[in-house]
């Protein structure tokens, strides 16, 4: 089989102990050189899905295929291989760094884990560090001794040390001030070009997603409700939830020109999702059919997909 540099997720579901189905049948594809955005609010399952791609969550059904290799029934060496190909950076960088390791040890560890020659690879690590704007003087510090921004860079460096093809970034800009948020996003796009990475960005920040991703998938209660090229989805959303999300996103509007669509009600608990369309309890366009029949994710033009019985007409 020809090696395809992709991660293919085929209809996976992840259920936690206690019966909460956090991810309910999702299919996605991520290729190298591409940035995919995963958007959703709390309870949407976006982080759970991201972790399933790194093998931190075991799907109860469906397949994850990384570069042609099926991850179901992984052996130990498979898992090691996978974790070299697909790396993750976590939401809170400081707490994702082992507190009693110096930065030097933190950066050397991935090499040791993957049996790479540390001496040979060290110059590449130093190069990566300078690319990320980390000084060598930081090497002997502990994570809590560097700033939050630097801890974030260390976490990114660690993810890239073993040369992965895919990077999963969970809320990479959460808690950042706007003046440094751009810096981090620029950095990610530089790294993507340099190492031709496939990047999955999980975020609730639509501005970030809209700006840096090629394609976007919108999740609601464990399902993808809409997917497609980011620009098109943002310009002309098909799913009422996507439209509401985009509308709720605060943008600079001192003259209050924009009419917001404010959804009523709370996000239902993922432990008992509504029957029919999962969004019907909050959908402004709800019809009787939506309460009974679950809409399927259907293909549309331009590689778009959406799951709605009554998709929105394009404005154009």
């Amino acid at each position, binding site marked *: 089989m020809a090696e395809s540099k992709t991660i293919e997720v085929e209809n996976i579901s992840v259920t936690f102990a206690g019966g909460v189905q956090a991810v309910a049948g999702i299919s996605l594809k991520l290729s190298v050189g591409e940035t995919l955005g995963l958007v959703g609010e709390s309870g949407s399952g976006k982080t759970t899905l991201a*972790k399933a791609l790194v*093998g*931190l969550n075991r799907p109860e059904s469906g397949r994850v295929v990384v570069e042609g290799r099926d991850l179901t029934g992984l052996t130990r060496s498979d898992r090691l291989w996978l*974790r070299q190909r697909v790396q993750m950076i976590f939401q809170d960088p400081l*707490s994702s760094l*082992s507190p009693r390791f110096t930065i030097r040890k933190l950066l050397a*560890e991935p090499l040791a884990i993957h049996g790479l020659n540390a001496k040979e690879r060290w110059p590449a690590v130093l190069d990566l560090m300078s690319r990320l704007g980390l000084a060598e003087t930081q090497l002997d510090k502990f994570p809590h001794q560097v700033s939050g921004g630097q801890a974030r860079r260390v976490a990114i460096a660690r993810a890239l040390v*073993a040369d992965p093809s895919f990077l999963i970034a969970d809320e990479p800009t959460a808690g950042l001030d706007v003046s440094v948020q751009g810096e981090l996003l620029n950095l990610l796009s530089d790294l993507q070009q340099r190492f031709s990475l496939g990047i999955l960005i999980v975020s609730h920040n639509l501005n970030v997603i809209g700006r840096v991703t090629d394609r976007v998938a919108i999740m609601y209660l464990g399902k993808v409700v809409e997917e497609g090229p980011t620009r098109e989805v943002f310009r002309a959303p098909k799913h009422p939830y996507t439209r509401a999300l985009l509308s709720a996103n605060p943008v600079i509007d001192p003259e209050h020109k924009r009419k917001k669509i404010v959804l009523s009600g709370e996000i239902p608990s993922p432990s008992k999702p509504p029957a029919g369309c999962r969004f019907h309890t909050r959908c402004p366009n709800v019809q009787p059919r939506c309460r009974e029949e679950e809409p399927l994710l259907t293909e549309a033009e331009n590689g778009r997909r959406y799951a709605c019985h009554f998709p929105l007409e394009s404005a154009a």
Partner: protein
Amino acid sequence: MDILRRIWRSPSGRIGLIATLLVVIGGLAAPLIATHMPNQIDVAARLSPPSATHWLGTDHLGRDLFSRGLYGTRIAVGVALAVTATALFIGILLGVIAAYAPTPVERIILAVFDIISSYPSLILALALVAVLGPGLLNIIILVTIVFVPQFGRIARAQTLTIKERPFLEAERALGASGSRIMFHHVLPNIVGPIVVLASMNIPVVITLEAGLSFLGVGIRPPLASWGSMLFDGFTYLEQSVWPVLVAGGMLTLATLGFTLFGEALRDAIDPKLRREP
């Protein structure tokens, strides 16, 4: 060392450190410092007060109290260290297993801990002596059993909190194996508080061993033990206070020293633990 400097900064820590060093050096150097053999009997000089030959006097068999006290230090501190180290090792092992094992295993381990610690330590020790019999090795074994649950519980609790910390998940995502995560990332983060507990535990073990020896079920004569010295001293208290004073004084110095040292160590390592009972 930074930690030692921080201990030295508090007055009680300084006293504790000095007392602990005195006791430990006294014990280690006992053969060099002691003026007499600890079991050397001199019936002619029995129950004599301090003098030039017997610095701290003699006991009812005319044995030199200063030398016996020093040798008693070896027993006391030796037993305390052996017990604490073994209990620490077994406790951490069981605690970590309990934290990671499936629920039934965890329940069994916790139940054993509960059973052991539901008895007052002296009563349990006495019961175990009845089974194992007295003697140095048996004392070490049974006192260890008494103290394992303490360490096990705190090791489990620490592991459970560490287990939820995101960096372990990050390590897994990086591909780290279970044993690497355990030895490189879990253990170094749980030993701090446990070692502090262990240092505070040493005086408790010393007292317990002295208590057992006092009751005649601990270290067997003629080995010098503060507990048995105290017991003998009490028998002859009306004739001389010196045996009781020497044994009691050394016991006090050692427990006080280790306690103050342990408290200062705790404060130095983790200021957050302060003000806990």
